[in-house]
């Protein structure tokens, strides 16, 4: 599998994505600073009682990171898997001495490793920046969650974000893959149960992750046995 991952990376470079990830994190940081400042200003008005929003800066940042990376993962799925079917280069891969299941699993493992790394890098960046800013700026607020909970939430988010593979493969469409990721972001960021989104509740995150894993396994089984058209 290592050899296949190396070959995938020759076709799909992650360098540009790393630069993009850094830029996205800077934007997210500024955005959550702006939101925290805005909520702080609102708090000084009597109207603030109506809003009842209690989100610290780090929670807003991590919620935005999750939302951005779910869509980012859909872009990876579209580029690394769906596009191969769309452009029929998957036929070519099937003429090589590797089983179709090995080829598909390699792609999926590559996506998951890349995305877990992106989540860890982004979370670390936001934690470090917001921690130091909270020492200097009064409206920037920070707290630290249990590391295991954070890791479980990250893995669950990556698994849930595999669901667009099923929709993208059903329609062999890059657009369907990305639109379905946006729908997942809307659903998982909904404030039902928690103002920080459903994925901020560890139990729900794990359940959603498990659902994502089951849907992906069913999709992959179909991809391995179906004809390539």
């Amino acid at each position, binding site marked *: 599998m290592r050899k296949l991952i190396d070959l995938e990376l020759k076709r799909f470079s992650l360098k540009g994505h790393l630069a993009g990830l850094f830029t996205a994190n800077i934007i997210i940081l500024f955005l959550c600073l702006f939101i925290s400042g805005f909520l702080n200003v609102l708090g000084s008005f009597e109207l603030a009682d109506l809003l009842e929003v209690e989100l610290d800066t780090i929670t807003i940042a991590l919620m935005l990171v999750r939302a951005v990376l779910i869509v980012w993962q859909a872009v990876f799925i579209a580029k690394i898997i769906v596009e191969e079917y769309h452009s029929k280069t998957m036929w070519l891969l099937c003429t*090589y*001495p590797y089983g179709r299941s090995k080829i598909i699993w390699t792609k999926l493992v590559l996506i998951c490793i890349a995305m877990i790394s992106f989540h860890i890098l982004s979370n670390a960046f936001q934690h470090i920046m917001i921690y130091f800013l909270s020492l200097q700026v009064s409206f920037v607020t920070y707290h630290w969650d249990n590391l295991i909970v954070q890791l479980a939430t990250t893995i669950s988010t990556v698994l849930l974000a595999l669901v667009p593979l099923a929709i993208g493969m059903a329609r062999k469409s890059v657009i369907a893959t990305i639109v379905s990721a946006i729908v997942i972001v809307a659903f998982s960021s909904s404030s039902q149960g928690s103002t920080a989104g459903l994925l901020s509740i560890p139990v729900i995150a794990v359940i959603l992750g498990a659902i994502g894993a089951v849907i992906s396994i069913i999709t992959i089984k179909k991809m391995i046995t179906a004809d390539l058209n």
Partner: protein
Amino acid sequence: MTYAIEVSDVTKTIDGKTILSHVDLRIPQGQIYGFMGANGAGKTSMMKALYHILVPDSGQIKLLGEVIKNGTNKVFSRVGSVIETPVFYDNFDGYKNLQLHCGYMGIDGSGIGEILSLFDLTDAAEKKVKHYSLGMKQRLALARAFLAKPDLLILDEPINGLDPQGINQIRVLLENLNYQYDTTIFISSHILSELSKIADTIGIIDSGSMLAEVSMDEIRSKNIDLEAYYLRLIRGVA
């Protein structure tokens, strides 16, 4: 006798339509086998089934003695192919496409320069494939198929899009490959005059069923050309 391709009783149905019906095909090692049939007769489907791109509903396929299954088929490292329209990573240049091919086939890329030169693509080696003409893509696909010096070549309409000079060049290359390396060649084409020049045996498929398998010597002995033989067969005269 050793067979490079053994297809036994292969059937494939898609959306209720039988596209391959109990196909039996045996191609001895070292032969050039011409595969003929009208559009939609099942030629490309048969070739796709050899790679399980189309997974047969029943029957068995062996390539170079190895049964083809849904998992890993090591034998594919000894097979070169061009099936239907050649596909490439269009945003990469020709050279990089061949490098990737070498990576997947587990061979070094030392022969890339030579094969590009052989197919008159040296000047286009650093050009993105999306800017190639159809003829150039076809030549690059053939270069890719030849690169690993395979024991078996599966070529679906390989001379489509080539000019007469290119067609002649491919014919000479195929004959040399077959003569020098004993490479088995399974080739389909609509250009019957070209097939008759290189093929040892002709297989004819119609509506997913094999109609006939006949040696070119036998056709020649009837004092008719391949086109006449094919038309007679299709009309039920032969």
